């Protein structure tokens, strides 16, 4: 009995050399198949990302025709109804344009191209007031208060910073209580950085908090959220590209605070600066 047990335990070592070589060959083959499958998955992911980027650029052409056509109809002043319809088309086109921009940004980030920064010197509170004005028009039921202390000037990408502010304000207005104002505060007292906070009444559901800066938050998102679920992810990447940070303070009592910290001078901008996108001559 004991002898039989020893025999069974030692059996693998007694396999003929040919079978051992077969097993090694099978293992090598399996590893090669796995490597090829991984390479194929990487290629597939890369193609998907390139496709998303190309699609984003291609969609801008028909969108440009829609936007120009609707603007033209509005300029004709044909009738109040036509103006109203043109206005609705423009609003939808703007929303579509933002989604296309996000898709292109996301693709650039995923493919490692990074976000280009066109640095100019400006005051953060100026951009905050512009963003607040635009958000105010879209959400007249809310109040937005902007205040600043110290020197709010620095060298950043104005359009990108405006993109962050627009996103933070949209979030605050969508999720915040309309009974309390959304407060934008800019603190420029430190010599090396400027800090901007966007604060609203109301808190996020605890299950949403870990996903806040994740891309494509999909079904886990708050049902009031519209769009692709990329805004906060891209906003944080823009802050990072400036050498800064974007964080959320969700632990406070009945308040939600997003904090954007930007160094006054970007040390390592990602990629060459782009020419202005839509500047007047």
């Amino acid at each position, binding site marked *: 009995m004991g002898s039989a047990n020893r025999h069974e335990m030692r059996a693998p070592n007694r396999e003929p050399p040919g079978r051992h070589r077969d097993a090694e060959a099978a293992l090598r083959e399996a590893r090669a198949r796995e490597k090829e499958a991984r390479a194929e998955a990487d290629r597939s992911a890369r193609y998907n990302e390139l496709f998303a980027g190309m699609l984003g650029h291609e969609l801008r*052409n028909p969108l*440009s025709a829609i936007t120009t056509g609707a603007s033209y109809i509005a300029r004709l002043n044909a009738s109040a109804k036509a103006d109203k319809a043109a206005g609705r088309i423009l609003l939808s086109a703007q929303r579509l344009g933002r989604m296309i921009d996000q898709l292109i940004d996301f693709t650039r980030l995923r493919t490692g191209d990074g976000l280009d920064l066109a640095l100019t010197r400006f005051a953060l509170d100026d951009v905050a007031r512009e963003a607040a004005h635009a958000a105010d028009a879209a959400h007249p039921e809310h109040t937005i208060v902007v205040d600043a202390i110290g020197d709010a000037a620095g060298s950043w990408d104005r359009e990108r910073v405006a993109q962050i502010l627009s996103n933070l304000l949209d979030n605050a207005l969508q999720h915040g209580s309309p009974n309390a104002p959304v407060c934008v505060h800019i603190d420029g007292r430190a010599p090396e950085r400027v800090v901007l906070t966007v604060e609203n009444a109301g808190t996020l559901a605890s299950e949403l908090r870990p996903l806040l800066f994740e891309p494509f938050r999909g079904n886990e998102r708050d049902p009031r959220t519209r769009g692709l679920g990329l805004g906060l992810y891209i906003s944080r990447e823009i802050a990072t590209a400036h050498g800064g940070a974007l964080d959320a303070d969700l632990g406070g009592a009945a308040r939600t605070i997003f904090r954007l910290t930007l160094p006054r001078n970007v040390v390592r901008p990602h990629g060459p600066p782009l020419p202005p996108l839509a500047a*007047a001559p």
Partner: protein
Amino acid sequence: MTAVDSVLAPRRTVVIVDDEETIRETLRDVFEEEGYAVELATNGVDALALMRALDERPHVVILDLIMPRMDGGAVYAEMKADPALREIPVLISTSDPSRAPSGVLIMRKPVDLAVLLDAVSRA
């Protein structure tokens, strides 16, 4: 300029170069409504031939970048190399500003019509 002079004055010509028909035709309607003469081209080769054939220098060229046969970047380079064309103001209208040549006004699609009209009037 009097009203009569204004009527008799030759209209300023805007050349629109874009392979997207809906964009070309919509911009034609817009600029004609604004009192400009409009010439259209669907690619870079036709655009250069058109500009060289015009009696008067165009007021401005609105140039797409990604087009068949010859892209907008090559058109711009050829215009800058041609003494007859190099002084014509160019506005780049593109879905991908990262491809645009440096030193030229760029408008990312979708273009804001008010900004475009303002830029053309100032060109």
